[in-house]
């Protein structure tokens, strides 16, 4: 777990053209991952976590303006021509998507779809690719893989389809795996199985993984490091344990309080964060959380706060950590 980072993102910015005008969907996101490391991205819908993932894959719409740097080993990915990017996608960097029901092409057999990246990136024959596809489907726990390889996506359940997309993403033994809400669309009973499968594969193959979720529980159990995103910026980042023990940002604290809990007295209302997520098209000038923050001050609204180190590699983008962290103990 040492040496140069596998993937290094520096000051990533993404500007999207939306129907409401240009929007800065991502600002100043930086992180680095070495082989075998895992990183979680957590936040509400529209916080920029999926846009960050698509930026890494080079799959943002053509109208998107990307700034900063994304390096995979020594290759700069920002502004990389699509032809060169195609050689990396599905080969060195892969992605699992949120919706297994629609992520597979209904017209092609699953065997064809799992074999496709192999045929594309490795020099194997069609017969070898088919054998490899069966082995992959076996590995991701699809029952009767050899028999069902010529079946179509509509003949599988949601959980099985997600296993198929995982097999597809892993076909070429990628170095980096991005999982964007891989279990959100699945039944609760299946969620754990799929996450365990992904965790097992990440460990077995020594991949770096970026796991995106809105679910703090999923993040807590599956990644070593995490970043909390809000309004396109990373508001808090650090070792998962450190962040969960000492939450520094008022938003992280609010997110944590808002989770439902077993054992709470019946009729207890869930705590929510007051207000709504700001529109990316008109973000406030200062801290993007200012309008919903309980301890906001005038100076919070002046400029985007800098990241404050509150522990070993634990950073919080807040100028009032003295107050927020003194209030401390938000858990329980």
């Amino acid at each position, binding site marked *: 777990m040492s040496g140069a980072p596998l993937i290094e993102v520096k000051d990533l910015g993404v500007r999207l053209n939306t129907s409401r005008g240009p929007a800065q969907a991502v600002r100043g996101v930086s992180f680095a991952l070495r082989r075998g490391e895992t990183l979680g991205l957590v936040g509400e819908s529209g916080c920029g976590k999926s846009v960050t993932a698509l930026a890494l894959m080079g*799959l943002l719409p053509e109208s998107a303006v990307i700034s900063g740097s994304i390096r995979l080993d020594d290759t700069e990915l920002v502004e990389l021509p699509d032809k060169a990017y*195609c050689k990396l*996608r599905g080969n060195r960097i892969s992605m699992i998507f949120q919706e297994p029901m*629609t992520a597979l092409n209904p*017209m092609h057999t699953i065997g064809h779809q799992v074999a496709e990246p192999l045929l594309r990136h490795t020099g194997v024959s069609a017969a070898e690719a088919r054998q490899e596809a069966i082995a992959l489907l076996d590995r991701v726990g699809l029952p009767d893989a050899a028999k069902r390889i010529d079946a179509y996506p509509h003949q599988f359940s949601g959980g099985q389809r997600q296993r198929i997309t995982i097999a*597809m993403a892993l076909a070429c033994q990628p170095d980096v795996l991005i999982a964007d809400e891989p279990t959100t669309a699945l039944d609760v009973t299946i969620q754990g199985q799929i996450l365990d499968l992904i965790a097992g594969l990440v460990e077995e193959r020594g991949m770096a993984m970026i796991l995106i979720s809105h679910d703090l529980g999923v993040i807590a159990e599956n990644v070593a490091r995490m970043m909390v995103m809000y309004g396109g910026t990373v508001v808090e980042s650090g070792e998962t344990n450190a962040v969960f023990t000492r939450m520094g940002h008022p938003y992280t604290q609010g997110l944590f309080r808002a989770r439902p809990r077993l054992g709470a007295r019946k009729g207890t209302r869930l705590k929510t964060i007051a207000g709504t997520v700001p529109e990316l098209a008109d973000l406030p000038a200062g801290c993007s959380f200012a309008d919903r923050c309980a301890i906001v001050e005038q100076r919070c609204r002046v400029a985007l706060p800098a990241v404050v180190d509150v522990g070993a590699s634990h950073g919080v983008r807040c100028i009032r950590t003295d107050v927020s962290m003194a209030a401390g103990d938000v858990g329980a």
Partner: protein
Amino acid sequence: MSVFFLRRILTLVATLFAASLIIFLVLDALPGNAAQMLMGADASPDAVHALTVKLGLDQPLAVRYLLWIKGMAVGDLGNSYVYGTPVSGLIAERLVLTIPLAIMSMLITVTLALAAGIYTAANHNKLGDVGVMSLTQIGIALPNFWFAILLILLFSVKLQLLSAGGFAGWDDGIWPGIRSLLLPAISLAVVQAAILARVTRSAVLEVLREDFVRTARAKGLGKREVLWRHVLRNAIIPVMTVMGLQFANLLAGTIVIENVFYLPGLGRLIFQSIANRDLIVVRNCVMLLAAMVVIVNFVVDVLYAFIDPRIKVANL
């Protein structure tokens, strides 16, 4: 698959029966007695009556209908009131022209429409898209007989490349025949192609927004490969549906276009038979057109099941 197939065949047969009944009743309700028309206004009532009996027009409606159906089943469509020759022969010698015309025109339609539709969808909102879509807008607004006259003015009168009308037949090989059908086929195809191009474009654009397109890109496929391997097969179903419906328009269009180009085809036969009150010819020709439309749409339905693996299961 077999259940799907069987159900479609039953629907096909039922539709054909319904069509035959409607055609028979409508033509029977027309005013004017065929025997009177044939013999002229001055003919003696006895002679008219004799001819009526000879043509079988004195029999009850139901009997005449059943005789017609029975005749179609054994391939005997009766004799033309005007020419006195078998209707089946008259139709057969016209189909030699109209079927190649319809096929040529459909091929031109599909080629133009798919090329334009896929090109514009792949270049969505770019200059080429806007340009080609404006052309299709004009194409939709063109009346085909007027466009046919423009084509004659350009290719026959000005450039003297193709003949302005008439049919060379197939006796001297296939090229003279195809040359004489080229302008009519293009005139018929242009409007249809314009409509189908727009359908193709919107079908492809819709599929391009699907999640599996992004999955395919995430595997490392280029935009063009995704279009050919993943998008088109999903987009082709609505396109085929419209193609099936357009085939009916195309057959109706031949009646006008064959008159513009003096082509002795089925359309012209229908036109002349209506003018002559040769209702037995009209009835059989219209039935044939109806059957062609129904069968083409049946074939389209069956093709769905070959293209989309979900359809078989949904219908079992």
